[in-house]
Each structure stands twice: as C-alpha cells, then as structure tokens.
C-alpha cells in the first residue's frame, strides 16, 4: 500500500517537472496532456489515502454536523430585508455572520439566483418571495453580482449610476440601527460586530474617528447627511427606469432581468 503510494508520488514528482518544463517551453498542448495524466495520478493517490484512513475525505466547504438552521434562501432573505437594498453575496455573508445565527455557506449563494429563476419560471408566484436580481437602470439587464427580494417595489431593485452609493449608505443606516437596538444600554459589542460597523463607518465622511470609538448614532447621522446629497437624483432615475421596466418586461423579466437587446443599446447610445 505505502509502496504503491510512494511509487505514485515519484510519478507525480516527475510529471510535475515535465508540466513545468512544458509551461516554460510555451507548449500548452503538451502541458495540458501532462496535467491530465498528473491529475489522474493525484486522484489515485488521494484514493489510496482514503483507503489508508478507511473513510472518505470531507467534501470541500462542508463543516460536519454544523449545518445551516434555515434554508439558504431564507437566510439571504433575512439579511436583504434588514439591509433594505440590493447587496452582493459577500456583504450578505458578512452581515449574516455578524448578526444572525447559523452558518451561511458562501458557495451556495453563487447559484441561488439561477435556482430561484428556474423555480419561478416553472411555477410563477408559487412562493411568497423570490431572491431575484437587481436591474440596471438603462438596459434593464440583471446587475452583475447583486441579490434582491421580489416583493420590493420595482424602483428599489433598479440600479442606476448613483444607486450603489445610495444602497451602501442605506445599508449602513439599517445596520447601525440594528446595532443600536441590539446593544442599547449595553456596551458589550463583540469585536467582530465592531469590525463590521467599522467597515461601513470608515468609508462614510465623519461617521467615526476610529474603530475603537465607533458609535451607531454617529454613523446614522453621517450616512443620512451624505444620502441627502444623492437621494433625489437617484430616486428620479430609478422611478423612470421602474416605469419602463413595468411597461416593457414580462413578469419573469421584471424579476430576473432581460438579456442585451442591441437595438436598445444603440438607442441608448444615440
């Protein structure tokens, strides 16, 4: 058994050297072929390893028995409802980890929007809400990497040029409010939560001096002050696009956006 593994290891070593030589030689075809062979060796080696241990290795990303308490879509819904604005999966996870119980497996978020769309298309409105897309203001296409909730008014799900900043400030206010309510009269904010708040506060003018002197009320005041600068222009753009979306798109497109239509691009250019 071990002798077999050692033979495999030697073979892997020499294959690795050959792959590296092929890469240096700029011979990508050869490198690809060698790498396939190397991967074959490696999986054999890992199989032997598993036998050695007498049990299958844990698949990536799994953390034993400590699974999520709620289905992923419900966890995401919780977070988005708190934020009140479209958000990227990274932010959703950060907020979840700081404020909610259980684990939100990041890998599952990548396919969530696609799964929701499939579900909606096969049985429209069968669920009380869907995790859906935010739509770009001009083209009404799904905004890259943002999650939103289907029950929100359309204009909240529109992303115009000012919306990323507006949504960030909105989220900052909502998160700070949540902290204020959670820790009212209680100074025991955990370092992790403090770090999350600081990530918002650091990027808003006059929201906080340093990570150690952070105060939710100050963040709220500062974020509202900047929000007041952008809010009107942003909501005008959003309202206009929302109107267009409702008039031009079918139900599924309203939730999950529409692909690029070149005619629209050209007219937008004109």
């Amino acid at each position, binding site marked *: 058994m071990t002798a077999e593994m050692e033979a495999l290891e030697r073979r892997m070593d020499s294959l690795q*050297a050959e*792959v590296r030589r092929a890469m240096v030689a700029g011979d990508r075809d050869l490198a690809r072929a060698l*790498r396939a062979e190397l991967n074959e060796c490696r999986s054999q080696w890992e199989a032997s390893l598993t036998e050695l*241990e007498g049990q299958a*290795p*844990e698949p990536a990303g799994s953390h034993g028995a400590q699974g999520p308490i709620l289905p992923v879509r419900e966890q995401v819904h919780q977070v988005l409802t708190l934020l009140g604005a479209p958000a990227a999966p990274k932010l959703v996870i950060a907020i979840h980890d700081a404020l909610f119980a259980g684990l939100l497996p990041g890998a599952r978020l990548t396919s969530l929007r696609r799964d929701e769309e499939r579900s909606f298309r096969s049985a429209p409105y069968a669920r009380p809400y869907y995790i859906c897309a935010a739509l770009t203001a001009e083209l009404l296409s799904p905004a890259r990497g943002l999650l939103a909730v289907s029950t929100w008014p359309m204009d909240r799900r529109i992303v115009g040029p000012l919306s990323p900043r507006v949504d960030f400030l909105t989220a900052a206010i909502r998160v700070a409010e949540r902290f204020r309510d959670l820790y009212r009269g209680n100074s025991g904010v955990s370092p992790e939560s403090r770090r999350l708040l600081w990530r918002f506060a650091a990027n808003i003018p006059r929201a906080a001096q340093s990570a150690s002197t952070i105060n939710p009320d100050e963040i709220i005041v500062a974020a509202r002050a900047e929000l007041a600068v952008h809010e009107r222009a942003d909501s005008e753009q959003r309202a206009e696009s929302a109107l267009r979306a409702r008039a031009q798109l079918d139900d599924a497109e309203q939730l999950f956006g529409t692909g690029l239509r070149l005619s629209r691009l050209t007219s937008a250019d004109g």
Partner: protein
Amino acid sequence: MSTLYALAKARAADSGFATQASTVRHVHLAERPLVLIALTFAGEANAPLAAMAGDTPESARLLVVTQPRNRDERFAFAAELAEIVTGYLGECESALRAELSGADEGGAGHGEPPGAFWQKFPQVIVPNEATIGFLRLLGRSTRLRRPDGPYPVDPAVPVLGRWLTFLAERAELPGSSLLVAATQALALHWATGQSAVEDRNLAAVLGWIDPPAGLTGRAAAAAAENPVTGPPAGPATDPTFDNEVLAPLIAACGRTEIGSAQRQRAVLSLQDSIGAVLAPSWRLVWRSVELLRGLTPGRTVSLRAESDLAAFLKYGEYLRDGGTPQPRRDSAVAAARRLSSLEQAQASYAAQRAFDDPLVLAGYRLTGEAFGGSVVAADPARLGGSGKRRMLRPLVTVETLDVVRVGPGDKLVSPARPRQSAVVMSVSPLAGARSAVELELSGGMGRSLVAAPGSVPAVGERLCYTTLTDSYQVSGAFPERESTPWTHGGPPPVYVPVPDDAVEAWS
C-alpha cells in the same frame, strides 16, 4: 565598480571561469554561523511560506506554513523561527558574556578579545540580498506585536522582530558581518563572467566560481538558471512551482480535516516538496561559507567584527533592560545621524579594504588616488626644524609606472606603514611614462632622532602610497532630540508603541 573589477569580469567571461577579485577575505566568518533560507508566498505582503535554518550543514530545520494566507499560521511560523534565531543569538550572547566576565577576572584587560570570543561570534548567513529584505520586513511586521491585548502573539514573536530589525539595519552598514548575503560576499572576492543582475542568483554565481567537474563555470551557471532543476534560493518561488506543485498541495492540506491521517499525509507531502526545493540552496550557502573560509582574512576584518560584537551585545542589553522596539520610521535627527554614520562607515571600510588588499588598492592606483613602485633614493637621517625643535624627517623617492595625481603638500600614507605619514615634496615625470615622487616622512620611527631599524623604507623596497585614510572622522554636529529644528518636524515625540501597532493587520 572599477575598471579593475570590470577587467576581472571580462577575463572570467573569456575563460568561462570566475576570476580572483581580491587577495584576502574582507568578511568575517563565524565559526558557527546560522544559515537561513526563506520562501515567501506569492502575491501577499511578505507572507512566509517556509524557512530552512541551522548552524551546521547537518542540522537543517525546516519550517513550513501549510496555509500561508492564514494569519495565525504566520505568527506560529514567526514563533518557530524565533525559537531558532533568537535561540541562536541568545546562546551566542550568553557565551560571549561569560567569556567577557571570565576575561575581566583573569585581568586580561582591554586588549584584543580572547580567541574563545571568536567562537561565539553571532552571524546569520542568507543566500542573497532579497532575503535580507524579507527579514527586514518580517522584523517590521512582528516587532510591534504584543503578547497581551486584543491580538496576542507568542512573546517570542516581538523579540524576533526586534532582533531581525537590528540585524537588517546592521546589514546596511558597510563591512558589517552580522547578517551576510552569500551572493554579495562571493562577489566581493570573485568576479563572474556575467552581469550584476545575474549575480543575484546564488546558484549561478557559484556555478562560475565552483563548477562541477567537467563543466565550465559558464555552463554550470546556465544550468543553474533552470528553475525546475535549480530552484531559486528565495524568497520568491518559481511560478511554475507555485502553479504545478504548491497549489495542489496547499489545497490538499486545506481540504483534509485537522488531525486526520490524510492531513498528516498532505502536510508531509507539502513539507517534502518544499524541503526538496530548499535543499539545493542550503548546500550552496554552506559551500559558499566553505569557499570563503579558504581565503586568508584581511588585517582589519577582526576590527570590524569587534565593532559588530559590541553593537550586538549593546542591543542585547538594551532589549533585556526593556528597551522599546525600533519605531516604524526614524525621526529626522535619527535618520540624519544614521545616514552620516553609514557614510563614515563606507569611507572607512573602503580605506580598510584597500589597506588590507593590494588588489583593492590597485583600483585606487588606477584612478590616481594611490601609486606604487620602488624606492630609488632614501635619506633616512634627514632632520627638519632647528635647535631643540629638530625632528627626524627622512626623505624617500619612489619611482612608479602608475598615473600620479598627487602634488606637493598632499598628505599620503602607505599601507605597509599605516602610522607613518608622508608629505609630497615633488613629482617629476621620467622617461617611459614613469614618475618620481619625493616624500618627506614623519611618525612611526621611534622617539629618538635616529630612525628605528626598518621604519624608513630602504632603497629597493616596493610599496604603495595613497591619499585614503582610515582616521576617525569627527561626526557632523547633530542637534539633540529635543532641539530638532522645526524644518525637520520639531522635536519628535518619544516613540511609544501604541496598541494599534500591535493589532496591525497581517492578512
């Protein structure tokens, strides 16, 4: 760079083998140096991946970080490295102190340090300059940490940081031997037939100097450039190694459960691969040490080593007295003072090397800052002054083929008689591009009006004279800290490490 060194390189390129660039050794070599090789993880700011260290060729210890992006593992690595480095320095220090107190009791006085002293000389030898840079940054990222507070680290970590910072700063001092890059030490003594850029590769440099039997230096150097067979000596790794070897192994370590047999196997595999990449460089650094040991040390090498020892002991004492770590940045006055002392050390080191080594002095002869030749006339009994103030002032005339750029009144000294000074009386051109230089000598001849035997160069003696001096320069007057001018920011606050220093992210 001098024409002389350039010519040595040209000869090496022509012959295919390195040529001699000095006649003596200019670097002090400890009897038991600590060799240290380090690898970093690509893309991150000075994230350690691995180190190999030990004070004999047989005692290599390998440290490997299995998840280099993980902050805790980085500090665990720093703690392990501290055990080796601080442990080594601590052993040297206590042995030196024991030696010192023994010497005091024995009434040895303040002369030369006793021989046993040299056995404990602390010296860290790394493959190349880039590794010194790595250690400097590792020092920077660890010296301000704290063993208590919000992000506590092993108490050994900040101590390591302070020592590494001390060593890295000392390495900037010309002629210091506490932290030495093998490539630089070799280039000081041998000229390869390749460029300075290529001289940063230890394997290539050694290829030129010490090729395997049957190969020319050039061929050995070329072979050393293949990263698959001749892995780089760090701290950067070869990208194909990262992509084809390291990435799957690190992934395997991350995928397996801590404590499982798979994890053990994966970690072993990773260690083996990294060990295999470090092993050739390990041998090369020790081979460098061996080659350098084969050279006769110059006369002033031990002088500089003594000042290294003094600085080392002083810093150890400072640390034990609870001294604060080096600040993130020097204050204006400290920076100016440091620059001035580096310049002084540079001048003094250049002069010492020239005095120790005719081949280095030859560089100055080529530019007219020195000349060498035979004494053709001597008047050893000549007296200057009058009456009671008569003084012994012998005259000698040296004939030289060298270009002479000194003139009457210039003060010179000969490496053969460093305590005797010579003033140029006249320079006369002779046939065949020769020159005759008449010199008046003073000092170094005893107290009477008759020169001590051998103290005045005799006719026929060959010797050199130079304008270089190694006399102590009065340092520029620097204001005290508290009177730093406002143009330089006014008096700097006394540096007190703040908690933020200790919690600075290292991620």
